[in-house]
């Protein structure tokens, strides 16, 4: 099963490696990993998306907790969460395809962020599935290069009242 795990970790020498090592040490493949500062500067948040057996992920989480530099580990898979990813997709620019690319980008609320006489770069953000879909529609234009940020995620706040469905979508 796919898991999204967030780890709050001291921003110290070697701390990120230790976290990543634990996954590889258990034979887990990391789909994506993203690291950035939190509201407290010396603490970073790592968001790790991985695939693996539920029992083993529980073990990994316990062992992540055991690491000296980790402060909090949450398996977000079990929670309502907001997940976002950003992708930069560079496709081949040929006469006549600009309009089409622009239209498709609009559907995904993506932006064209760079253009020259050979290529166009599109920026798309959203839940990972939306980014996947955007990548798929860009494919036919010939993707020359792509960079994805990896997923970042936060637990959703408590929601006292039922919320309209659309609001939950992105």
């Amino acid at each position, binding site marked *: 099963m796919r898991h999204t795990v967030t780890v709050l970790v*001291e921003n110290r020498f*070697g701390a990120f*490696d230790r976290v990543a090592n634990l996954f590889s040490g258990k034979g887990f493949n990391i789909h994506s990993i993203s690291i950035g500062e939190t509201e407290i500067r010396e603490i970073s948040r790592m968001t790790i998306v991985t695939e693996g057996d539920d029992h083993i992920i*529980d*073990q990994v989480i*316990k*062992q992540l*907790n055991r690491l000296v530099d980790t*402060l909090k580990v949450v398996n977000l898979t079990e929670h309502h969460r907001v997940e976002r990813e950003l992708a930069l997709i560079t496709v081949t620019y040929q006469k006549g395809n600009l309009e089409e690319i622009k239209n498709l980008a609009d559907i995904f609320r993506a932006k064209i962020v760079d253009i020259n006489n050979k290529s166009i770069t599109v920026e798309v953000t959203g839940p990972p599935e939306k980014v996947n879909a955007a990548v798929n529609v860009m494919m036919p234009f010939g993707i020359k290069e792509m960079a994805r940020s990896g997923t970042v995620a936060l637990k959703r706040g408590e929601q006292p009242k039922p919320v309209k469905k659309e609001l939950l979508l992105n």
Partner: protein
Amino acid sequence: MKPTEKTMSGAEIFFEALKREKVEYIFGYPGGANIKIYEQLYDIDHLTHILTRHEQGATHAADAYARATGKTGVALVTSGPGATNTVTGIATAYMDSSPLVVFTGQVQSHLIGNDAFQEADIIGITRPITKHNFLVRDIRELASTIRKAFYLANTGRPGPVVVDLPKDIIAAETTFEYPDTVDIRGYKPNYHGHHNQIKKAAEAVRNAKRPLFYVGGGVIMSNGSEELRVLADEHGIPVTMTLQGLGAYPGDKPLSLGMLGMHGTYWANRATGQCDLLVALGARFDDRVTGKLDTFAKNAYKIHVDIDPSAIDKNIVVDLPIVGDVKHILAGIAAELSGEELDFTEWRAQIDEWRAECPLSYEKADGKLRIPHIIERISEITKGNAVVTTDVGQHQMWTAQYYDFVNPRSLISSGGLGTMGFGLPAALGAAFGVKDRPIVNINGDGGWQMNIQELVTVKHHNLPIKMIVLNNSFLGMVRQWQELFHKEKYSFTDLESSNPDFVAIAEAFGIPSFSTGDVGEVDELLDKAFNKIDGPVFIEFKVEKEDMVFPMVPAGASVSEMIMERLNPKRMV
């Protein structure tokens, strides 16, 4: 910095910090990257440095010193090859949760990552085999890092910590400030088990008909042997121990079932299979203990007491986890049950029946010299009171079976990693830590050759280690597996034609040395070693070559598939 404050060099700070940590011994080896520390060491008299002849030896010695005393072991080595030579020692300590701090020299900070001479990324290399590790990058952090290293090594679930010291840091200067307390946000071991859980555990004991304590090294580490003894004795609850747990409860008492698992006793394994309450105490359900997981203690309500939350439910899902220090929790359970009359007579009688049915035994009638006999004699001559270090293999398992350990911190053996070459350096480390009990190293002819250089260190310090090599001319344990499971292809395990003259070797190191293959000479030689000669003694016993250790539960099999004797595998129920 106030101008009046005196500054100290990194090397001075290093030794001042060790002084604050009350370090008595460091085991080490000098080189280019740590030469400044050795320069400082020349004038230090508050601790003793032991020069081993290999960094692996230093690390095992420090590890064993820790296991024998409960204090933190310390090793000091240089960068590059010095550091990489400690890797097996660190992994050994990690697997058996031994408190160890290893200081490695490192190239100058600005050269790190440049493939400088004698550079190795020891932080990266040791990351998966340490509890934590540090690269000191600023002289102002040196003292507090050492403080943290010792704190981490010997609190919670103990383990090895590496501190990597670049050469320029050791030479730099700053004022000395040693923190009184350590506060690490992400590290707060929980010592006191949850009160309700303790109550539930007591209730489970109360309701059990066939309770069993399954004791691991954690009981010894937490110094909880006395609490265990009180609880087991008051209510007559049988105790079985893992290799690391032997000695936690006196092996010569009727409530002790000896070791369980792959080479455990028949009755301990039967009891494990039949108990209705299994209380795991500082043990980790290792595969050498459980065999096939889904048949292990199948019908028992399982309680798991451990200081490490990540040990809980790792291999076996338990009914009642209690996270905390085993010593505290044992005392808590004992207090709950104190004065109550619990009656497990029937259960004990059942176990005694099993004990009588298949006692540990070996061939005696043919008059040949066999390892179990030698171990039994050592056990009797030392009254079970020696500190025994072993290597890995058949002799190790026979030691576990036939030596009656009556005290904790008595068997020092590489259980988790199974490191050959551990025994001799471990004995030397133990000998510095323990001065009032006999020190014995029991070794195989294979493992003996894996850190044999430490004979120099033993001789140089005239350590009273009785070194026993049980020479079966084979890598015996591998040979046993080859015979049982690998079509009798004795591939590269026969050492007969290549083994050296062991007596000549030990004599060359200046150590009184003896050899015999005669069962009639065993007592005389042991008497000489233990009672007549003060310093180190070496004895080679030439034993039966093809004996095997039984009982044996084949790897991954369920305990009921125990093989009782050669060619005649009597199956358990």
